[in-house]
């Protein structure tokens, strides 16, 4: 009943090559991401998908190639800078702060937005407390959005896998990112959990207009969710385009669909 329209390019990946010592992980990868789209990166295990995300948010530094984000071509950037530029992400194997509750994990996601200094926080009065409350409210909205009210105060270590994934998504959302990188958000989930997660991804993209880059194995999911898909295989870029087009691509069928699912 309504048309998806893609904005202009926010992220441009140009001829990225990355290797650890002798091992070539990414080989001359180029694609772009448009404002407000859901962009998928697919490929068999070891295709270099996660490495691609790590390059995008500055954990790994590619030997060749350039990344242009919001018109600015980035030079060697520190890991924490990605967040400042509005890039948030989740991880393939959950990287939550085990010692903290759901609430605190998500609160931590807002660290960049908190302005009060250490002394104010030590006294926990005035600005510091105001901020705590104001951000708590924002976090509660996220908790509400992800429907995890029931686990609000539970230490994340005690949560089932699917829930942990949700909390991690919550932590990423807390930063109110423009660009959200999701590394296999549905890996190892049962059907309902997957459906929920899909709903959340769509709603995030829809409600907040967040641009999403997503790695996923489940072809069905990818085809339903994404506007455009990049296919990687052993560091090489096999295809790039709308789902149905990619689905028809022979190279992809051989390399990927042929192999798994």
């Amino acid at each position: 009943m309504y048309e998806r329209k893609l904005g202009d390019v926010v992220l441009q990946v140009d001829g990225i090559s990355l290797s650890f010592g002798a091992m070539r992980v990414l080989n001359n990868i180029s694609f772009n991401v448009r404002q407000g789209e859901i962009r998928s990166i697919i490929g068999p295990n070891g295709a270099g998908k996660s490495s691609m995300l790590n390059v995008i948010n500055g954990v790994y530094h590619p030997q060749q190639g350039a990344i242009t984000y919001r018109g600015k071509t980035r030079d060697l950037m520190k890991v924490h800078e990605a967040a400042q530029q509005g890039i948030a992400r989740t991880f393939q194997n959950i990287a939550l702060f085990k010692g903290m509750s759901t609430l605190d994990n998500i609160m931590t996601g807002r660290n960049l937005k908190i302005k009060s200094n250490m002394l104010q926080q030590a006294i926990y009065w005035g600005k510091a407390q105001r901020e705590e409350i104001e951000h708590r409210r924002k976090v509660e909205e996220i908790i509400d959005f992800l429907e995890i009210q029931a686990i609000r105060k539970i230490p994340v270590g005690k949560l089932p896998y699917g829930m942990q994934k949700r909390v991690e998504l919550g932590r990423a959302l807390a930063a109110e990112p423009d660009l959200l990188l999701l590394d296999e958000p549905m890996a190892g989930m049962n059907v309902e959990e997957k459906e929920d997660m899909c709903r959340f991804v769509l709603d995030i993209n829809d409600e907040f207009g967040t641009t999403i880059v997503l790695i996923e194995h489940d072809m069905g999911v990818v085809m339903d969710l994404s506007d455009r898909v990049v296919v990687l295989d052993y560091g090489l870029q096999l295809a790039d385009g709308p789902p149905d087009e990619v689905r028809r691509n022979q190279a992809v069928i051989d390399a990927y669909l042929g192999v798994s699912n």
Partner: protein
Amino acid sequence: MSLSPDRKATVNAEQLNTFPKLLLNHANVRGRKIAMREKDLGIWQAWTWQQILDEVRALACGLAALGFKAGDKLAIIGDNRPCLYMSMAAAQCLGGVPVPLYQDSVAKEMAFVLDNADVHFAIVEDQEQVDKLLEIRDGNDAIGHILYDDPRGMRHYDFPFLDSIEQAQKLGREFDQANPGFFEQQAKAVDGDDIAIMLYTSGTTGNPKGVVLTYDNVIITARNGIVREGLTENEEVLAYLPMAWVGDNLFSYAQSFVAGFTVNCPESGATILTDLREIGPTYYFAPPRVYENMLTQVMIRMEDASRIKQRMFHYFMALAKRVGTRILDGKAVTFAEKLLYKLGNFLVYGPLRDVLGLNRIRLAYTAGEAIGPEIFDFYRSLGINIKQLYGQTEGMVFICVQPDGEVYADTVGTPAIDVEVKIDDNGEVLYRSPGVFHSYYKSPEATAKTKTEDGWVYTGDAGYFAENGHLKIIDRAKDVGKLLDGTMFAPKYIENKLKFFSFIKEAVAFGDRRENTCIFVNIDLEAVGNWAERRNLGYSGYVDLAAQPEVYDLIQECVDKVNEDLSRDPLLAKSQIKRFLVLHKELDADDGELTRTRKVRRSFIEERYAPLVEALYSDVAECHIETEVKFEDGRTGKLAADVKIREARQFTPVAKAS
């Protein structure tokens, strides 16, 4: 009997005879007092009576601006949310009639009600409900306006008739500016004999009927309830039962509006138990199954406790069973017992009540269907004042209530204030009360069938007054039959008694126009399965387990207990169970043996298993049977078994039939 401290309310009861008037009154008598809470965004957001009034005012004006007029119906669909309760009030302030619907019913079911009630306006909770209405709407555009609370997911819905409550209220505030005094004038115009609300009862057969209730029905009954139980404006209740159900409307809306106490809405279905504990209501209402589930949870959790703890727990629960209820009813117990109970209260009862969130309860009701005596006694022995209540939508709930100190598991108490109850010749219970409904919407003949000229209502239940003057409900009147010797035969009553045993899942009693009562029993696979495992006797599946002689012994005990029970009952003593069998297959809705709401379809079963019934009334000890069954995947197959039949022990009646 203490008078409601809300003197103002009782004194000028005459003037305060509608919700709009009550609301205005609360706003100036206790404008600062919390009227409603909702757990939202992690904390209990609160509305004072003044704030409620403001919200309602804005919404009412908004509705008016959208063209909602006196007499219009307003469909209300969603979980218990303050804004939905306020919507009710808003509609009523305009002389309109709220029609709450069951939020989990599917579009098709809703369609009927919406159409039958000529609904043009709807206020719903979220996208889920909106989508249903849209589905219903295309085709007929009867529903002129839909307002929703939670905008999530509807960013791209643009329909002229779809709007958020917020928007409507914004509109309303402007409208209010433009037409000062409109709201008051509208609100005051509403009067006691106007229609307050329409509640649809899901009849066991046919389409639901819209029960029309006037303000006098609702408010006088609510006030009587308050007066009888001495409720105050300081009660806390948790609103978690469907808004479309008369009980919720009485306890979470009407009585709150009359007494001015606080209604709390849980955060979500998943958090009800935690929310219950956080709020710790002082006034609580739940159908038996809720209490039942709670009890099962308790038992399951205790299973995993350490040995010592379990010992302690069971010891003190046994003690409580002995003395708890007596103490609660203010009967005499020995000093030692009292002391032990105090200790138990510190070690078990207190903590248990607290963990369940029932610690502050002053009054708890159960109604809707019969509650198992063990369950009932469990809670009372913990010192929770839970009482049975007998009521109907048609009578705005209250018909009979158990008075403090006279609480028995098997009766529903004495008539409530201003309620007259009588039993007609064929044992059906009739009542007359201020709560008696106005009519069934748009079906005078149905109304005439249930309600006599002089205001008596047929409950459709068979029952009688026990010696202690308490009403005892036996069964649905239409099910009650007679044995050949003329003894009253109440199948459901017997079936329920059997089902109170955790081992028995379903029971089917035969006896109408027969010489005695015989029954089919369906064992509860889980309960009996555990029982079997603990005695490590192996079984391959239901059929196998059901046939085990040990299981028969187990069921025999239950049946005998029921007979013993029946023998105490003057009317039913002669309808003791003669013979029984454990059915070789689970009764199943897919096979048409149960209704979708899991009620047994006796007649159907009777013919389906005719050979078995025959066998029951002959003197054979075993009978071979083959039955068609539907499997999960829809295939059908044959299930054959040799079903054993046993004699039940008979007890000599203790009381003379009166």
